[in-house]
């Protein structure tokens, strides 16, 4: 029997009667991480990693939520369940489910390279692995962290020297904080959009160390901070909010899609930094190999191409249709705050 099945509500475990990252209301939901396409409103009971819980509570409000530390296991009906670091955002987990000696892992979103913020990805041995494929094509290779931080800091320092504010677009949970930790704060102050500052507050309260940041408020005086770097959600950058930073400000996006020149030009940003909280091509292939799984289910992303490739590599690979979105290319609306 299959340990996990794919239903129109989400990934379901019959032995334990629970769902993983369901997109329709259910009784028991195990949540991999707090991004809104994985962690939705309306479940009767939530279970997630202890590190992921504060943001999920912050985003979903008054919910019934239980937590588990990484690697600890719990019996739920006929299934033995444990959470393991996925390296995607703080608290993000791969969920390991074992039923009668068969081990399946639902990995949610993940990346294999350490980001200095989230608990680093750990491969989990399994028989079947459920993987995303947001960047499942060989054209995606991420910039190494040292080069990336030097690119961003150089851009910021050049702008600061020219008296231009730097405006950097990034997702509110994970990407924004990861970037903050790379910044050289001797260049100038870091400001944030409200959606990001709210997430910062939640993360700081649970003991995650972030550099000092100030929320941009209505009275923001751009003349007083010509050397500032402002981190904003992509949706805020598209709106009138960005006018606060003057006609001369320089804007940049930090996203895996910035690897593609066409997308970068379409966003009409001055700079595009190639960084993602999803695995790149090599990362996906390495992660799958490290699980030792024979069976692979490919969810959101370049599913058909990646599945075909995995089959050629000898995996029993299948496309699974879900409502997960991964990192959006053009959509400026971010997952709800």
């Amino acid at each position, binding site marked *: 029997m299959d340990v996990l099945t794919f239903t129109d509500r989400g990934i379901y475990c019959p032995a334990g009667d629970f769902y993983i990252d369901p997109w329709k209301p259910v009784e028991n939901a195990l949540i991999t991480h707090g991004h809104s396409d994985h962690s939705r409103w309306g479940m009767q009971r939530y279970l997630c990693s202890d590190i992921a819980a504060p943001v999920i509570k912050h985003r979903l409000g008054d919910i019934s939520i239980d937590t588990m530390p990484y690697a600890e296991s719990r019996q739920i009906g006929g299934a033995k369940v444990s959470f393991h670091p996925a390296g995607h955002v703080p608290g993000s987990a791969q969920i390991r489910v074992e039923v009668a000696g068969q081990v399946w892992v639902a990995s949610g979103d993940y990346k294999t390279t350490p980001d200095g913020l989230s608990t680093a990805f750990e491969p989990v041995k399994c028989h079947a692995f459920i993987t995303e494929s947001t960047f499942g094509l060989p*054209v*995606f290779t991420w910039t190494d962290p040292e080069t990336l931080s030097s690119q961003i800091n150089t851009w910021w320092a050049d702008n600061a020297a020219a008296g231009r504010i730097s405006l950097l677009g990034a997702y509110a949970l994970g990407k924004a904080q990861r970037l903050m930790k790379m910044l050289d704060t001797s260049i100038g102050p870091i400001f944030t959009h409200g959606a990001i500052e709210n997430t910062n507050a939640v993360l700081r309260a649970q003991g995650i160390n972030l550099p000092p940041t100030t929320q941009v408020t209505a009275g923001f005086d751009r003349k007083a901070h010509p050397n500032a770097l402002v981190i904003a959600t992509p949706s805020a950058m598209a709106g009138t909010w960005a006018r606060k930073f003057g006609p001369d400000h320089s804007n940049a996006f930090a996203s895996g899609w910035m690897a593609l020149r*066409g*997308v970068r*030009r379409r966003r009409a940003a001055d700079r595009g930094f190639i960084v993602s909280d999803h695995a790149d091509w090599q990362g996906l292939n390495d992660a799958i190999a490290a699980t030792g799984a024979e069976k692979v289910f490919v969810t959101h992303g370049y599913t058909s191409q990646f599945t075909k*490739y995995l089959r050629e590599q000898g995996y029993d690979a299948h496309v699974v249709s879900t409502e997960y979105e991964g990192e959006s290319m053009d959509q400026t609306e971010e997952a709800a705050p």
Partner: protein
Amino acid sequence: MKAFAALFAAVDQTTRTKVKVQALAEYFRTAPDDDKLWTIALFSHRRPRRLITTTILREWAAEQAGIPLWLFEECYPIVGDLAETISLVLPPPTQTSDHSLTHWITYIKALSKEDDTARKTGILAAWDQLEPLERFLFTKLLTGGFRVGVSQKLMTRALAQATDIDEAELTHRLMGDWTPDTTSYHSLIEAPDPTAALSRPYPFYLAYSLEDTATLDPPSDWNAERKWDGIRGQLILRAAEHHLWSRGEELITDRFPELAQLKDFLPDGTVIDGEVLAFANEAPLPFAQLQKRIGRKTVPKKLLTEAPVILMAYDLLEDRGEDIRALPFADRRARLADLIAPLPDTLPLRLSASVPFKTTQDLARERDISRDLGAEGLMLKNIHSPYLAGRKKGDWWKWKVDPLTIDAVMIYAQSGSGRRANLFTDFTFAVHDGDALVPFTKAYSGLTDAEFREITAWVKKNTLQRFGPVRQVTPHHVFEIAFEGIQASPRHKSGVALRFPRMLRWRKDKPTSEANTLADLKEMLAQYG
């Protein structure tokens, strides 16, 4: 290549024109002359000849990347650029090098004399010693089509800043059929030899669309003529030779041999700006007739009689060897009329007639009858205006007739390339024919970026079938298609071909049942074809 790659990065990483021009000017101040010359050539659409088919390049790149060819082919439409796809999939270089742009172009040219094995070795070796951005640019040189967000105009402006030579003068020096093999930076830019460029055309003056008829005040300052729909061209007669240039700076002399006889009738040192038109019985033939001649380098006799061409003369730029572009339009036109008047009308040359008018209302009425005369609208030129270089506002206006329109159903979608990669932007449209939907045109432009994103999301969810990159979608959306002309075409299933089709409006208010029919199209063909 590092300096050129740095220039490319600087230009590519900003959307500000000023920053782009500064980066280019800095490059023109510091780069070696050979590299400058090649940079000018590349940014003015002069690239080295393509030496290897893209099919082979794809195979080599996939092999080098250790991926199956099909996977490479899947990546290409998502990236939207072949050279970029190649540079993204290749493994990091194992060697380093620091050669000039000219070195690599010479390297590519040397490979063209080798067999395929040596070419492959040479190209793989180059890929293995270039950083990703240099590798992208090198591969761009191999695949051609060097369009990189710098227009010839911006490049010329930067060159003017770096050299202190007047921009219009530089624009002129950069015209014509030079290549980096036939000239040097010094003789092209710094010390042009006037006799070396007998075929060199003047930069074309281009008009903007008229926004407000109030601009045409007083009307007596303006000359109106028909806007003919042919190929804008510049005829040059110098030293007993003739040359015909298209607006895209392509030499098209041999395609229109009937114009050769003009050099026996016009004085040496004559340059005429005009429109090449298929023409018979003192009236223009449909553009489709001219189209038959555009693709041909040489013309069979039969076609010469079926679709004879003339030059409809608009303006005189050089008169008996003298550059008269600075003279007022009225004077230039008078000289042009004097040149043409005594010529026999068996010659393929006509003066574009002035359209008499007193008021802008008269003009509006004249514009309304354009289509009946085979014209696209009116051209309005200030009689005091000099002949300027490039698209300039104020002295010349085009006032085109409103396009024809038809409501059609979208049935196929295909993604674009470059900036539009990953977006569905190329659509096929159909009209009703009984119960069937008959495709009759494609259109690519006219929607906003937001609309393209919206329709892309819809296409992804409503794909019925895939044929390679093309997706058949549920017939659901109606678009108003605008076009400039309609012709009978046996090559198309619908029996018609449209000129300049584009999406005018997304008619979300209309169900597919309210789209037009093939009978409607046929009626338009009967009326305007």
